[in-house]
């Protein structure tokens, strides 16, 4: 994570490892459906690099940076646990 002190905006980058690129991509697709609630003060960019989900948030205030990353991590946690529980069963070839 890094804070950009040059401008008044703050940037946070989070890298979250997944078991595979496929799972990281699923998480990206799931999260991206919901728009940020305040797009004018919170910019979100999510990409996938190999098995890493890379999320970058640029926010107007430090408070927004904290709120946004908390909410993001809570959502990622739920998606990760869901994939953890059902991922293997899903990849089992259909009988």
């Amino acid at each position: 994570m890094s804070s950009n002190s040059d401008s008044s905006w703050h940037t946070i980058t989070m890298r979250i490892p997944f078991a595979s690129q496929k799972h990281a991509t699923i998480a990206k697709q799931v999260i991206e459906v919901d728009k940020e609630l305040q797009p004018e003060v919170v910019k979100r960019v999510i990409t996938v690099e190999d098995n890493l989900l890379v999320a970058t948030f640029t926010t107007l205030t430090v408070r927004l940076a904290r709120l946004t990353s908390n909410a993001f991590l809570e959502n990622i946690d739920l998606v990760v646990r869901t994939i953890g529980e059902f991922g293997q069963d899903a990849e089992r070839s259909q009988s």
Partner: protein
Amino acid sequence: MPGRVRKRSPLKTPDRPYIALGLEGSANKLGAGIIRHAPDGSTSILSNVRHTYITPPGEGFQPRDTAQHHRDWAISVINDAVRTAGISLHDIDCICYTKGPGMGAPLVSVALVARTLSLLYNKPLIGVNHCVGHIEMGRQVTGAQIQLSFGNCLDRFARVINLSNDPSPGYNIEQEAKKGKRLISLPYTTKGMDVSLSGILTSTEAYTFDKRFRADGRAREGDTEDIITPQDLCFSLQETVFAMLVEITERAMAHIGSKEVLIVGGVGCNERLQEMMGVMARERGGNVFATDERFCIDNGIMIAQAGLLSYRMGYETPLTKSTCTQRFRTDEVHVAWRA
């Protein structure tokens, strides 16, 4: 349906068994249910699992805490539903989730799980209107005609007088109301087919500050007969609100020429409401139908049922459109599967 010719249903009988998973979490109940539509036209409920977030007396459920509850329980509730149904998630045709109306954070939590499962298993998503879910469930169980729902008002009053939220505030109001002795006057407002519940809660609450109010329900030394107990207030609130509901239901029945009433939703479990509706319907030579508590209260099955009907009509919710919306009116839904 008496008095009208039944049109042919646009829904074709299924050519093979269809199975849907339904996920519901618009309020404090998290539910997962699995339903099957068979080629012979029959519907079977393979599982119906629910976990309720119960708050201490005097507290309502806050969106944040409710969402946390759903996040904590989602996986085990879904696993339970799949195990009870004795199927694999590979066997299902679609994943149905509540799109709204309801509280934003809990809705989104459940939608996140639904989307993840949809992508993992490559199954289509179906966004369902919560209220349509209730209605379709009722139709499936009883085969009846129109509906009305509310309940928030009773829940809020339960909080005012510190009733337990276990098993549900509405249930505890109903029990307290049975002990009520006097009917206290409360504002009665119906406008055409709508009821106004806004003033009634305030007025009922105001009685709790009345000199004659006895919070413990017992008369003090020197009291005359003229005291007001929490039980009296529960009784009066219930009687007044239900009278309003019965009145507009009767008006609606007269308009559409129906003789049948279906009561759905959490309040539908209230025996007094069922009784009052019953009297009215019988006077009109009709019937009242109520579903039992497993299907009255929010559940995953009702979402699966309404979702599977849409799916069989060729409707799907693309992933990028699988958002949630806190406000989602029942009449915004295009009910393609009914004639």
